[in-house]
């Protein structure tokens, strides 16, 4: 005897959040049944394996049918096929777009193209995330990117409006779109210690302060391109390291402020010029696409690593950056205060976020 057909359809679509998660995680039906049994589903309602299997099949089928709708979430509320209560709609959408940060970290900065899609096998075996699940997440990234690419206005809001996601999730997607658009180098060995959340934070900073949209949010097209004018202006900061007087003055100002306040004072004093040169050089080269893409690797190699080898604590670093940035105001000959503040504000918070093991 075998079951040829087995369906259950409710006027209000019956959804089990736990089963949904199992489906999203890319489990097969039999895997999901096993997991549910281990989680004690059999204790409920005098169930047995057969019932659990039938229920899981039904649920998986329902989700599969809903998937088409979930790909354009605004349709979920307007479709007629499934009568889903609003709170369930929100849950379905939010969960569908949630992703594993481990996976996102792997894809970050890569072109969201077919080429990358082929690498998903490797990512799947590396991260232990089911291939099916990887595909869904990758397709979501690609889909969100494609939709917002064409839209004007603030990125995060656009994502929220079109995909009905929570604020937190929309920000994460903004970071992914930003990285995919700017193609930052994130895959180098030296950057491996950085998590997705680190990068997402940096992306948030860059989007908020350096992009076109940060200045004028009525711009056409995707406004996550960095403002060209600003990048160009950054070249003017070179005076800080090229002008020897100014460099010395800057150093003495910072040292005066920090004396006795940080443990690594002597190391700081010794490496001040190198560190300052590094930060200013990074700034001045951002107009070149290649150097721009290397922003994070440059920050790590030229700033984070020297500090780390001198065993700076995070507190030392915070104090140093604060005074390094603010002392410039006291340099009378320096006339690019606004550019400097805009640059250092972001760099400062990025470095602090990136400064960990």
């Amino acid at each position, binding site marked *: *005897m*075998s*079951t*040829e*057909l*087995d*369906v*259950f*359809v*409710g*006027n*209000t679509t*019956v959804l089990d959040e736990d089963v949904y998660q199992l489906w999203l995680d890319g489990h097969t039906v039999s895997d999901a049944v096993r997991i549910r049994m281990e989680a004690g589903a059999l204790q*409920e*309602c*005098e*169930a*047995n394996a*057969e*019932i*659990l299997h*039938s*229920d899981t*099949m*039904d649920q998986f*089928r*329902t989700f*599969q*049918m809903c998937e088409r709708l979930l790909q354009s979430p605004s349709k979920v*509320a*307007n*479709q*007629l*096929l*499934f*009568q889903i*209560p*609003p709170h369930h709609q929100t849950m379905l959408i939010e969960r569908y777009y949630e992703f594993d940060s481990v996976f996102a970290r792997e894809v970050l900065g890569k072109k969201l193209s077919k080429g990358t899609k082929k690498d998903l096998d490797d990512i799947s075996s590396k991260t232990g995330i089911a291939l099916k699940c990887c595909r869904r997440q990758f397709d979501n990234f690609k889909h969100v990117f494609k939709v917002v690419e064409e839209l004007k206005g603030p990125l995060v809001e656009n994502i929220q409006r079109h995909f009905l996601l929570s604020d937190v999730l929309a920000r994460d997607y903004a970071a992914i779109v930003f990285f995919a658009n700017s193609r930052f180098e994130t895959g180098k060995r030296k950057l491996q210690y950085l998590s997705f959340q680190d990068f997402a934070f940096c992306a948030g900073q860059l989007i908020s302060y350096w992009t076109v949209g940060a200045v004028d949010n009525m711009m056409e097209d995707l406004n996550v391109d960095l403002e060209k004018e600003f990048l160009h202006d950054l070249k003017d900061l070179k005076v800080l390291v090229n002008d020897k007087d100014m460099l010395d003055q800057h150093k003495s100002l910072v040292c005066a402020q920090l004396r006795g306040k940080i443990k690594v004072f002597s190391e700081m004093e010794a490496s001040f010029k190198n560190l300052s040169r590094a930060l200013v050089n990074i700034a001045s080269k951002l107009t070149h696409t290649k150097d721009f893409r290397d922003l994070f690797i440059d920050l790590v190699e030229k700033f984070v690593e020297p500090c780390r080898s001198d065993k700076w604590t995070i507190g030392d670093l915070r104090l140093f950056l604060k005074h390094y940035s603010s002392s410039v105001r006291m340099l009378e000959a320096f006339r690019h205060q606004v550019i400097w503040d805009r640059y250092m504000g972001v760099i400062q918070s990025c470095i602090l976020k990136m400064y960990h093991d």
Partner: protein
Amino acid sequence: MECVPPCSDRPGFGEETPGVPLSSGPPTPLRAQTFSSFSPSKSYSRQSSSSDTELSLTPKTGMGSGGSAGKEAGPLKVFLRQQTQSALEQRGVSSSSEAFVRTGEYPFFTLTAFPPGFLLHVGGVVSARSVKLLDRIHNPDEPETRDAWWEEIRQEIKSHAKALGCHAVVGYSESTSICEEVCILSASGTAAILSSRFMQDGPLDVEHRFEEVVSPGCGFCHIPYDELNIPFPAQLTYCYCCRRYKVPDVLFTTIDLPTEANVTGKGCLIQARLCRTKKKAQGEGNATAISNLLPFLEYELHTQLMNKLKLRGMNALFGLRIQISVGETMLLGLASATGVYLTALPSPGGIQITGKTPSDITYEQHISNMQKKINDTITKNKELYEINPPEVVEEIIGSPIPEPRQRSRLFRSHSESSDEVSELDLSHGKKDAFVLEIDDTDAVEDIHALLTDFSIPAGFYSCNTEIMPGIQNWTSAIQMFTSVRVFRLNTNLTNQGLNKIFSDLCENLLKSLYFKLRSMVPCCLCHLNFTVAIPEDELIQVAVTAVAMSFDKEQTLENGKQSGEKTLIKAITDEQLQFSLELNAETSSPNPLSSPKGLSDVGSHPSARASSVDYSSFADRCSSWIEQLKLKAHTIRRGSVKTTSSMEKASPLPEGRSRSLRSNRSYSGSSVAVVKMTPLSFIPGAKIIKYLGIINMFFIRETTSLREEGGVSGFLHTFIAEVFAMVRAHVAALGGNAVVSYSMKECVFMENPNKNQAQCLINVSGDAVIFVRESELELTSVQPQSATTQTSNGGEGT
């Protein structure tokens, strides 16, 4: 109220039904069975002109070729003849319903619920079946032959009802099962005596409605037949409520539990399932084989029902529906009903098992173990369903028929074994035990079925009637669902094996439902409607449609029965169904009748006009209002720009409607209105303010890419979801927000996996309504109708 019209062109009941005389012994033993009859492919012959097809007078030969049938028919025949005799005698007896008998009127009511006081007495279930050959109809396009078949069956039903001293049949239904050229026609209903006041013409006198009812809680249980001329062996006692009238020991009915009935504890769904193999045969031989199997099938279904009822400590069945499906190699029987403990009826005795070979000690041991198990189950069930009837001293009134203990109240055949049963000594114990003898295979199956039925999970109740006695305080959470399963059987199964598979199939389906709906507990699955079919050889299809309704446990305890009764009566009488329907016709007909604007409105929804909304059913009523409508339409044309909004003016509660729709919308935050669906006639906690018409839709879906759509399950899942969606969309387009009395009348599924193809036909129906939450209704009545409401109506009405 829908009545199957009594056949006026036929001779009155008193005359003999044409065809085979009832008392003509040898030729048709089965036909002669008093209350449930099987006419093996005979009746068409009256239409036939060719003599070689005269089946009717030669069933004996048919049975002879059937093999063992002749042997079994022997004792059965004798017994049946006895019953026939008593039935014939009964005909002469005049009863309180004499007036009806004289005029030859036997109203058939397909309704299952009635206003309080309408049912005076309920006699019991009456049913008739007949096996016919479809290929013998000469002009299949003409309905005459089929009409004659049904007429004959109705006559039989009438005679059964009459034999029970009743003049009407309520909860009546007819069904067919067809396999190749063989067709089983079935009809069943509940014999009853109705209040004559309700049957008279003219307006109902509300004041006098309740006069006739002596005791509303138990009146309908009192026997309608003469106890001295009892038409069948039964055990009568004085009513446990009023102690004045006699009641039977068990009562089976096809109707819903009357709202005023006194019930102890809760009820539960009881199912009897049976599968019987049958040799592949053709035409006449096949029909005869089926005819021979049917009585045994029914008998066993009935025994199962009785056993299960007793095992739950209950004494009455409501909503009984017996479905017989015929396939090439098997017959399938599924009986579903809701068991309850009627306070008026005596407490059922236990079940006692006896063995045939008492000398064997291990065997004795085995039996006593089983006995213990059964006793434990009964005790457990009584607790579960809260059956604690007050202890009353018993006075059993001797039955005039010599055998005092009988298995059934449903007037089914008693096979040989029943004789043996009555010879056993059952006098020990307080109650008469219901005896199961486990030496024959049937009994083993019975006991097996008894003990394998799983107990319902905590927090769940189930019934196949509209509502569950003892549960009130429904919350607004309802979930209507349809579940379909198809099983492929292995070949060469024995009867027992087949039985077990079928029974497990139903059990597992139920278990699955409980599991799926576990988030709704405490809840009750109401109106559980099982439909079985044999779509192909070796395939069994079971479809279930029901509604799960949550209820508030705390409140049930506090408020008890009273508040619930109030709600129920409200649901049934307070709605003033007739009145609302009139309003509906009134408001929906101006469009097609008088307003050109309205016409174009309807035209924009071609489907609304084409088939699905059955306006024609209101045609009669409409004609009497046409004058009124014309007046109204005139006002509409003169006074309003928007037809829809002026339609609203005619509606008694327009604000209510717009309110409910708007609130739905704001809730879902989208343009899709929420539409509730339920197979019941009411929505808990809500008042139906307008009936918008019948939804009756047929859908056919075919696929040639079955695998790509997720196989048969994927295909059907999508299809059913789409059917629901289309019904909802349709109701929303009519301005409604719910479908009540929803049912899936047909679900025919065929597949051909090799060709990657499948087809499915679904027929659903229901009533589109507008409801408002009772809490909202209070608000609405205060709020005056504003201009903004009008505007929003205009938008939504189209």
